[in-house]
């Protein structure tokens, strides 16, 4: 017997459906034109599909279980609960995205991001930049948004419901990828800090090109995995067997060894996928924008006060920085006495020492051991995706100095002289960002000295960021119009 009757479930569903559909429309009105169009269409489609699913399923259940009121009650309640869970997920997970988008969208950098992505993502995509008060950069991507959810409901429907859902799905075509890049609001005026976005874009390139899948299968390290399972089996189960004199219960005595092993395997699976996807994005970003990616990450970790410990979602920061610096070395950096190479070379021993001192235990130990053993092979499979666009040392030396010269003089480096044609040509966005970082890391005092004494230091830095934003935006416009 259900504690809540089916009528209540169905009425609550109707109320919530109406509220959520109204919220979507209200939030849509608050958005700038052209932002997240397909995402909104998808949300509307899912809510309509859930309504179709529940209404038609309930009608079908009434016919099927006309002579079994108890089963009818249980089935109706189950379907209403599923429909309410889906509405709840939309309310909790997707509407905050729409709400955040009503704030500010970074129009200055969007065209450059869009152009870069088209080199690597063959399918249609919708990308939205979402400012966030959580101090974090994040990527979210959905392939075949709405249609995959509706297809799933179709699979659990009777034939009439299935036909109605299929018709609904076929009526709307959305872009293949609906993606969001989250960035901290505090970084919105810093072109230097926003270079972390290259890493987040790396996640989309990974997803769209199925890079992670191409690295599989991977076998988890045996000895550390077995050790993890044994330790977990013997772990005392909190709050159980604590009566004086009674034996302490362990996970193995409550569950089974198979159950403990399954949970260890699930969590290691999750850790490994997340860590490898981070490594993929790191490698793609470092090739795409060169040292600017390293510097932005280094500052980001510093701001986060990140301890050198791994987490469920990320390898240890020092391990990642070491990987990034070694990749730069492989790209020809750190081979000269130039200022930028000196800065990078100086960082390497510190990062190596940090990577050595990182402590790994439990799932992190299993995954670290697994990755360590196969790292060379993983990197060899990731690099070909980006090798044609790698911003290596020779590309740096060819493009950055000219841009840097203008920047040092306080000029937005929008155009540079092309030595081959003798014509002015739009500066490359990657060169602009790297010039900004080189100036910041090697000669910022010289840049600051151009300002009047009363201008605060951080305003001078803000000025550098404005020059960079201006150059990125204007060079992009020039590129489109030339």
């Amino acid at each position, binding site marked *: 017997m259900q504690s809540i009757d089916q009528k209540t479930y169905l009425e609550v569903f109707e109320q919530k459906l109406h509220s959520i559909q109204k919220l979507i429309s209200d939030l849509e009105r608050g958005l700038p034109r052209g932002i997240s169009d397909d995402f909104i269409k998808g949300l509307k489609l*899912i809510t309509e599909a859930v309504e179709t699913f529940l209404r038609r399923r309930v009608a079908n259940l009434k016919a*099927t*279980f006309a002579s*079994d009121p108890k*089963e009818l009650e249980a*089935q109706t309640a*189950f379907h209403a*609960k*599923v429909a309410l*869970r*889906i509405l*709840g*997920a*939309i309310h*909790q*997970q*997707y509407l905050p995205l729409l709400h955040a988008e009503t704030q500010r969208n970074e129009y200055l950098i969007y065209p450059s991001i869009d152009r870069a992505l088209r080199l690597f993502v063959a399918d249609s995509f919708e990308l939205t930049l979402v400012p966030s008060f959580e101090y*974090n*950069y*994040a*990527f*979210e991507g*959905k392939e075949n948004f709405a249609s995959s*959810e509706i297809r*799933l*409901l179709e*699979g*659990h429907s*009777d*034939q009439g419901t299935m036909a109605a859902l299929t018709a609904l799905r076929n009526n709307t075509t959305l872009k293949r990828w609906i993606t969001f890049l*989250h960035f901290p609001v505090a970084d919105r005026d810093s072109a230097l800090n926003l270079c972390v976005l290259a890493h987040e874009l790396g*996640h989309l390139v990974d997803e769209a090109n199925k890079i992670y899948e191409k690295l*599989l*299968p*991977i*076998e*988890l*390290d*045996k000895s550390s*995995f077995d050790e993890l399972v044994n330790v977990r089996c013997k772990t005392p189960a909190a709050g159980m067997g604590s009566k004086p004199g009674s034996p302490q219960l362990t996970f193995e005595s409550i*569950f*089974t*060894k*198979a*159950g403990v*092993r*399954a*949970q260890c*395997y*699930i969590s*290691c*699976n*999750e850790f*490994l*996928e*997340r860590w490898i*996807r*981070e490594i993929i994005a790191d490698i793609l970003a470092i090739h795409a924008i060169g040292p600017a990616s390293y510097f932005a990450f280094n500052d980001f970790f510093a701001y986060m006060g990140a301890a050198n410990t791994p987490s469920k*979602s*990320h390898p240890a920061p020092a391990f990642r920085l070491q990987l990034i610096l070694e990749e730069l070395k492989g790209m020809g950096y750190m081979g000269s006495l130039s200022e930028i190479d000196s800065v990078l070379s100086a960082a390497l021993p510190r990062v190596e020492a940090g990577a050595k001192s990182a402590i790994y235990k439990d799932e992190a130990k299993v995954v670290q051991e697994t990755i360590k053993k196969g790292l060379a092979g993983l990197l060899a499979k990731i690099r070909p995706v980006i090798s044609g666009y790698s911003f290596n040392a020779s590309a740096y030396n060819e493009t950055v100095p000219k841009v840097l010269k203008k920047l040092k003089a306080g000029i937005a480096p929008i155009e540079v002289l092309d030595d081959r044609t003798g014509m002015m040509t739009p500066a490359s966005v990657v060169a602009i960002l790297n010039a900004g970082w080189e100036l910041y890391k090697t000669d910022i005092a010289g840049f600051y000295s151009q300002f009047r004494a009363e201008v605060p230091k951080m305003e001078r830095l803000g000025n550098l960021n404005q020059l960079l934003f201006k150059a990125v935006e204007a060079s992009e416009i020039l590129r489109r119009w030339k």
Partner: protein
Amino acid sequence: MIRSREVIPASLEHALIANRVLAALASNDLASQESQDAVDDGLRFLGSVLKGGQLASQRSIEADSYKAALAYGEGVKAFELVGRPGQNDDPTPYLEELLRCASALREHAGDDEKAVEDLKNFFRTIRDVALASTERPVETVSW
């Protein structure tokens, strides 16, 4: 970092599969297309549970191993809750027996009442465990 938001998480999908099998068994009409489709999905789910178990024992990570591992985790939980006769710790024979029973039902040869009851208990547990794992807290209090 990667954030993932799922409107229909894998556990909710598993609850839907389990419920359809239960509805088919309750309908007393296993010959209907709908019931057969439901039992087919149940068979696929049990196959995925067993595959998850194999992958876990081989420590092998493959493209769909996370989903299979989740199914295996739920299958083992059901084994721990309803299918653990004689404190046997290995869920594989129990899960294989369920698969055999479901296959027999699909071929209209499932007249073993106990086996059908075991199948019902398994899928009822999967449905309840999977649905419960998608619940949201009713209230959050912090100070």
